[in-house]
């Protein structure tokens, strides 16, 4: 055991040196080169945070191993660690945009912790409030309702995501129970998890309940964003500014004019091509017409002569 502790100590020491080196090294402190079109800073940040999570989990696993914790517990710890990251990604994916949060907060539709909009606040809004007009109150209520729907949709979506994780966990446990040779590395464990999770996810996507949850969260988020945009547009119009719908009306008219112009140009081109053909061979249409008439007359003559023969 003492040998193991020595190894741990040595490893932690090396580890510390690395992180000190990284923290003080130029790449981390130097902004991404201006010519690099990829968002290098974001890439470095992703790299750093993912590395940090991986390292932390590995360290915690080492500590657990030293305390001889059951491997089943380690598996739960792994799933919990990775699920947390996945949930963070999902929350980021479905979070309200910052301007929407700011506006909801400005209208007291959110408290500073972004906790769910309570029924009690809805009840207050349902009654007359000093300094708040009836239409303002109605608007706030509508916003509160949409926000509630969004939160409900988000909860349902996360429930679906959790079910996928649970299914993946079960599959991973089965794999680990039978894996031969046994899984020794964290990297392998991640690979198994990825395979099982994406497979469970794929199955879920084809179920009606997942599709509904996905549609609900997408639509709820968009409804809330549209609501805030409409609110803003009304304020712009009241201030005598051009609102987005008015701007869109102009764009639509402009687009229709462009379309008409294009069709006109295509028609002109077609006529021009016909004209060019005519100019290149001016007698061609007359010749073709004469040929048609000759063909008709020939057929008539043939018909008459066959009658005479009869």
């Amino acid at each position: 055991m003492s040998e193991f502790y020595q190894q741990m100590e040595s490893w932690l020491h090396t580890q510390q040196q690395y992180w000190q080196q990284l923290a003080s090294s130029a790449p981390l402190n130097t902004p991404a080169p201006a010519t690099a079109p990829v968002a290098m800073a974001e890439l470095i940040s992703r790299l750093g945070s993912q590395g940090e999570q991986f390292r932390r989990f590995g360290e915690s696993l080492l500590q657990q191993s030293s305390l001889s914790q059951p491997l089943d517990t380690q598996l739960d710890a792994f799933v919990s660690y990775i699920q947390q990251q996945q949930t963070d990604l999902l929350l980021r994916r479905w979070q309200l945009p910052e301007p929407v949060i700011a506006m909801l907060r400005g209208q007291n539709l959110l408290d500073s912790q972004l906790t769910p909009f309570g029924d009690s606040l809805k009840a207050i809004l349902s009654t007359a409030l000093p300094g708040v007009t009836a239409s303002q109150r109605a608007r706030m209520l509508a916003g509160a309702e949409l926000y509630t729907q969004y939160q409900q949709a988000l909860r349902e979506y996360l429930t679906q995501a959790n079910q996928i994780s649970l299914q993946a966990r079960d599959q991973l446990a089965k794999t680990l129970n039978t894996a031969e040779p046994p899984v020794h590395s964290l990297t392998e464990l991640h690979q198994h998890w990825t395979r099982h999770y994406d497979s469970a996810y794929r199955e879920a996507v084809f179920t009606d309940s997942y599709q509904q949850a996905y549609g609900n969260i997408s639509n709820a988020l968009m409804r809330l964003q549209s609501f805030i945009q409409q609110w803003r547009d009304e304020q712009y119009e009241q201030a005598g500014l051009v609102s987005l719908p008015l701007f869109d009306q102009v764009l639509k008219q402009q687009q229709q004019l462009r379309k008409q112009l294009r069709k006109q140009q295509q028609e002109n081109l077609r006529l021009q091509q016909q004209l060019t053909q005519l100019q290149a061979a001016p007698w061609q249409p007359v010749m073709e017409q004469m040929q048609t008439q000759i063909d008709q007359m020939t057929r008539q003559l043939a018909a008459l002569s066959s009658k005479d023969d009869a």
Partner: protein
Amino acid sequence: MAGFQFDPTQLSQELQAFNQQLAQSYQTLSEIREVDVWQTPKTEIYRQDKLRLYHCPAQGEQRCTTPLLISYALVNRIYMIDLEPERSLLRRLVEGGLDVYLIDWGHPDRADRFLDLDDYIHGYLNDCVDQVCLHASSDQLNLLGICQGGTFSLCYSALYPQKIKNLITMVTPVDFHTPDNMLSALARYVDTDLAIQCYGNLPGELLNQTYASLMPMALGVQKHLNMPGQLQSKAQALSFLRMERWLEDSPDLAGEAFREFFEQFFKQNLLIKGEAMIGEQRVDLKQITQPVLNIFGSHDHLVPPAASRALEQACSSQDYEALELGAGHIGVFVSGKAQTVVAPKIVDWLRLRSQG
């Protein structure tokens, strides 16, 4: 659990190796000043609004007489076929003696919100076809469409069959309702009109997130964890970063075009039913009688192989050929097979059918 045995020494070595890779990644990234794409020389021959039409002249002695126009999807950019010299489908085609023309649709902004499929197909694409024919002094051209650009090419070939000599579709959805189509499944309850009301143009970033969400773990946590391994040398890192640059360079989709495409193709599957409308004209894929080469990947998670295979029955071509590659949606273009199998196949197939 018999199959799960962590050895502390081995685990500590693994973490140490990971940290070393991470440190090396930072070092490599710090040495990169520019991530270059578009490797093959090209000349702009036409522009309209935000669209640009480029010409990449054929190289080599054996040249194909009919020009090739490549139409890419509105999502992402066409330089995916020219990311780096070793992984450039475009370069291989040009070296194979093809005169290649490329449509770069550009980045639509709010002013393009009402551009619809009629504008893209009867307008932009048709104008590009005419410009290429004019530039190459040819009555017809060969059309190659990629992904959504392939769907556009199918519509165009059905509507203007006299202008297209040969048609190549790559990773192109034709039947949008095959049972394994994840995108259609996800789209089922999403309100398209609301999306357009909310965003105007559909943000490219949103589409990227949707694509990545089809394999959430592999393209999320796992991708980030694999990153240090792909950033060990400058060459490796550049290769990785070029792909990242392309993934992030995702134009917004013109709102009305998106709505029409999503509703008609994804939700109602009208293309395969022969009921899709482009402007006032119905698209009948049976009008396609030209030779058709249909290329797709057997591991494509965006456009499942069955969605592409459906073309054989949907069109009337008597000279139909399919090439199924053991690759994913992007691998069809950037993998080793893309260079050694796909490009030579396209060149030979076209050369055989373009003479005379």
